[in-house]
């Protein structure tokens, strides 16, 4: 126990004295600060800009009524900033009504009717004289011409809706309604309210996502660090002295718990600064739903997050430590930790896809929430985004705790055997054989 304390102390100091570790932590906190202050700074800049514009406007009025020319120039300038959309209607009736409807839908563009032939229209679009063009074939069909089609291009959807409206309007008017009546029918507003009696997946999605992603990053990052740490001691032959000075279980637990604490401190700094800076800038964030949901995480969920985080971290860190002890060189770690990393990534993918698919209670997720290597992510996701009976949670946690202890003991045994094996990579069989004797 005394040795464990000494090792924990030594390893923790290694983390906190490591410039890279300190640097990354400060950097992350700084990034969070920048993000959290962003709306405040933006609104300050906008306010500042508005004030100068106001004062300039005041200035012009003061100078007198010569301002007419300037206004004309201003509107011209506005015309220049607005892009142009060409609309070719052929000999369809009500062309101007359609143009106006489209003009109202495309706020940032000026929709212009054109009599040009198809060639000329295409040339204008290619030359970017017009942003795009709609060539009507009939009241219900058209061709959309655009130079480079962006993946976010939803212009056809906008035009479809406008055309659908126009057609409905025309049909209603043809049936004898006046224009006002027809518009009244079309613009009926439907109101609704949703009451979720279980969990609101929309609301929980973001912090579950953040938690799962942090777990993923921290486990991979710190797991690799534990493995590298052990392999470095082995390759620098400090291990020769360590194995004769300390018990392998103390070494293993000391290292893993130190890395867990270091990771925790780092997360605490990151999330702590996020909470601090959010509260400083709360009013500028207004009612941003995503941010509000993240910071409005319920307390019981936070406790579950801590439990699964720590247990999930341990189970992987122990295995990474064992892998590190089997590597002869630090470079070997990447390849030898591959199976473990893949197992972890597979668990992560299952959880992520289930989350995005909205079905967190699928059979696969239920199974995963009891398998110790996936349960930290899977069970937490289910608790956060669905309603899970308490005994299921308890069972999952108990299985996880038992597995952590089991994996810890086995890893310490592998470590004890592994650290003294140099040269060729040992076969799995020979490791187990040596472990039985150890």
């Amino acid at each position: 126990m005394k040795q464990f304390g000494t090792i924990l102390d030594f390893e923790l100091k290694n983390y906190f004295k490591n410039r890279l570790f300190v640097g990354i932590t400060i950097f992350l906190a700084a990034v969070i600060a920048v993000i959290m202050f962003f709306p405040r700074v933006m609104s300050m800049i906008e306010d500042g800009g508005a004030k100068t514009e106001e004062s300039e406007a005041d200035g012009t009025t003061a100078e007198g009524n010569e301002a007419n020319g300037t206004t004309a120039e201003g509107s011209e300038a506005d015309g220049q900033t607005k892009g142009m959309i060409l609309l070719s209607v052929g000999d369809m009736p009500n062309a101007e009504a359609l143009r106006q409807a489209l003009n109202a839908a495309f706020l940032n563009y000026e929709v212009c009717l054109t009599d040009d032939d198809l060639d000329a229209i295409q040339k204008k679009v290619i030359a970017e004289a017009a942003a795009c063009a709609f060539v009507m074939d009939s009241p219900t069909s058209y061709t959309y011409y655009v130079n480079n089609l962006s993946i976010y291009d939803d212009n056809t959807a906008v035009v479809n809706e406008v055309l659908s409206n126009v057609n409905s309007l025309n049909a209603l008017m043809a049936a004898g309604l006046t224009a006002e009546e027809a518009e009244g029918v079309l613009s009926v507003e439907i109101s609704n309210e949703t009451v979720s009696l279980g969990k609101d997946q929309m609301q929980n999605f973001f912090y579950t996502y953040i938690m799962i992603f942090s777990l993923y990053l921290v486990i991979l990052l710190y797991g690799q660090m534990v493995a590298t740490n052990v392999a470095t001691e082995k390759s620098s032959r400090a291990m020769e002295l360590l194995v004769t000075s300390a018990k392998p279980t103390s070494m293993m637990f000391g290292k893993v718990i130190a890395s867990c604490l270091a990771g925790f401190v780092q997360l605490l700094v990151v999330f702590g600064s996020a909470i601090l800076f959010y509260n400083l800038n709360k009013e500028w964030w207004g009612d941003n739903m995503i941010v509000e949901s993240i910071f409005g995480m319920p307390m019981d969920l936070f406790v579950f997050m801590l439990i699964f985080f720590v247990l999930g971290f341990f189970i992987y860190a122990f295995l990474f430590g064992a892998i590190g002890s089997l590597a002869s060189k630090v470079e070997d770690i990447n390849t030898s930790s591959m199976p473990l990393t893949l197992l972890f990534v597979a668990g992560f993918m299952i959880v992520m896809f289930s989350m995005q698919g909205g079905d967190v209670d699928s059979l696969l997720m239920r199974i995963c929430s009891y398998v110790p290597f996936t349960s930290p992510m899977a069970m937490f996701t289910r608790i956060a985004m669905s309603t899970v009976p308490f005994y299921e949670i308890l069972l999952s946690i108990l299985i996880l705790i038992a597995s952590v202890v089991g994996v810890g003991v086995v890893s310490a045994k592998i470590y004890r055997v592994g650290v003294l094996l140099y040269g060729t990579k040992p076969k799995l069989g020979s490791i187990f054989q040596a472990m039985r004797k150890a």
Partner: protein
Amino acid sequence: MKLELKNVQKSFGEKEVLKGISFSVESGKAFGLLGRNGAGKTTTIRILMEVFAADGGQVLIDGAPVDYRKTGIGYLPEERGLYPKKKIVDQLIYFARLHGMKRQEATEAVDYWLGRLDMMEYRNKRLNTLSKGNQQKIQLITAIAHDPDIVILDEPFSGLDPVNAMLLKDVVREEIDKGKIVLFSSHQMNYIEEFCDSIAILNKGTLALCGEIHEIKRNYVRDKLVVRSESADAIADALGGCCTKRGNGELLIQLEAEEAKRGMMEQLTKTFDIDEIRVFEPSLNDIFVEYAGDHDEGEKA
């Protein structure tokens, strides 16, 4: 205090590394554990230090199984290595604390030894900024700073310049005088002869020879003659197969029996012009080569 190994056996998989090793050492004595590479020295040391358990046999202190919480062991491994990028004082204190010292005690002990080995100026430097010899002195501190009852030194003199070797000799002698058990493992026989009262020679996991050095030498069969002569070639021709030439030009003559030495001496001094003739007394090196050498291979050759 008496350290005893009784019939210690160990196998790794199919390979039998130790086939029943027994020896004993008492406080205030140095013991040489010799053998070629792969003979089983490091395995013996690791069993002694409880890195792994023996398959059979016992390790005893004063007749009882070793209580590792009470018996301090210091170890200078042959494969040197500490944390290259960490401050020297930090890692020395760490190792002393791992051996059960309190922080304050550890700091005092480390400072004492840094001073004793003229290394105080490197106290706050990183290990990898030091020369190999100085790194070795730092490593030595990890073996003795916690004031262990048993000190195990594996090739302690390799890589040291004569001045540092002298310093280390003094330190080793002090440790022996303090009543500690010092276990040496080395291939530099002159150091073993200088410090050790007893030796054990391991050969392929068996004890080829064990006992006090002067006893071993005294009991050595006196059936070889060393001859220095201008007419060495003529002597070699005359005696044939029983005669081998040594590196310094001397001839080594193997007699059929110890009793034949007087007759051979008389015969040679009568027949040839002899500068010197004496009974061959083996050095530790000779004994080592004879007992640790691979006889099977020699016969095949």
